[in-house]
């Protein structure tokens, strides 16, 4: 009976979502490739085209957005990502690890207030204070957008 119930139990719904990459309106960038986004979040691209230092923001490790971003973009687990940034700062290749925002709303505020910042948030959390950049020349609503699942 138990076996029957387990077989008959419907599979849990597949989590779906859509992340968008936001920057300050002052940042002179409208689009990014997935590879460059990964490099930014690994500290290998450190400056915007106008020379200002890039300040990436991340979300708490328990958040669904952070997990999805690490899995799909950085392709590292939380522990490896944290230790990667310890190494980046130690090697002198980065001035500081990414800014840790407590929520998507705080990440959006941080980006709006810091003209060199970049962050990822859920598509529903965007407002007019920040600008959304396209990824691989696709915006969040288009088919094939790489940060939708």
């Amino acid at each position, binding site marked *: 009976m138990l076996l029957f119930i387990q077989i008959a139990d419907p599979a849990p719904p597949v989590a779906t979502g859509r992340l968008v990459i936001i920057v300050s309106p002052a940042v002179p960038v409208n689009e990014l490739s997935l590879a460059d986004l990964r490099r930014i979040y690994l500290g290998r691209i450190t400056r915007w085209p106008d020379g200002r*230092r890039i300040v990436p923001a991340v979300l708490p490790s328990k958040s669904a957005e952070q997990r999805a971003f690490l899995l799909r973009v950085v392709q590292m687990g939380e522990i490896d990502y944290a230790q990667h940034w310890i190494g980046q700062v130690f090697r002198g290749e980065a001035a500081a690890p990414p800014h840790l925002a407590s929520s998507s709303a705080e990440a959006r505020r941080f980006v709006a207030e810091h003209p060199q910042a970049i962050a990822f948030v859920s598509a529903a959390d965007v407002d007019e204070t920040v600008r959304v950049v396209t990824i691989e020349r696709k915006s969040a609503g288009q088919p094939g957008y790489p940060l939708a699942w």
Partner: protein
Amino acid sequence: MKLDRCARLMCWMTAALMLAVPLFGEEAEAPRVRVGGFADLELHSSSEGDREGLDLVQLDLYSSAALSARWSALVEGTAERSLRGSNPGGETVDLDLERLYIAYSHSDAFRLEIGQTHTGIVRWNEREHRSRFLQTPIDVPAMARRPQADGAWPLRFVGLWVSGRIPGPLGLSYGSGIGAGSGRNRDETPIFGSDRSIALVLSLTMAPDAVPGFDVSAAAYAGRPRAAEEPLRERDVTFSINYVRSGTEVRAEWGRMNHTASDVVYRTTGYYALVSKRLSGRGERARPYFLIDRLRVPGDETYLAEVSEENAWAGGVRYDISNRFSIKGEYRSQRAPNGEREALLGLQIGLSF
């Protein structure tokens, strides 16, 4: 304590610069001064009985300062108490200035470092620098050992280092340096003395967009160290591949070092290969690994007389209790100087702060 006059001078200059950070005004975008470090201790038990109990305690401290939007400085020093190395019968305590430089970063395509830095001739050393916390296995591969720990390759030099990234799908980056290389001893880099020598380094790395996490690298080093009898002509090359993605880690490197004296050429060869995989699910804090480590040194080369050959393999598990605290357990099989295989059990506790 191996700080010569020049190193002390650079220490004071960097300290003065860091204290002068507020004078640079509002340009600084990052936290002005950052201090951090690593500490680790190792316990071993060997089948030969020559390494028992606590045999290595290491403290690595560094400080970086964002002097302005483009200028920064970094200083790193290490303290190590060891029962190994060239003095196996007794305890050694080493205090070393590892890195000390001022950097100017114009863009991602051009960064200039002035001071004492790493040559990057060995990729492991370049990527991991000194901290054992940041590496997966307990031991540093033989070809990446510091000269102070009887390593063979020239890992440090004092001078100018230029590096940068070339935009494009191939993910090319370069590094090139010129400065004072090794002196009469491998672990010295004299700047003013009669035994100073010029060293040149060039490295090129490709990390293509098509294969995230993969990179391949080549590096060359040329120097003329003033060995005891006559200057040696040194030519080193290394090749490495790395793949770090989704919990998988593969690192392999091969290096050849040629020392030419009169008509004699001494060839030193080394390589290592490391494979590790972070487990998934509930085991995600554990990372089992396997390492092969080889170093072959000509027995009659006096300049590398203190360097011992290595023929070892090791298997173990790194367990990350947190992002900044790890424990590693390892079984290592290595060839002892008498030719017999020696088994080692090791435990390392490391933390970052």
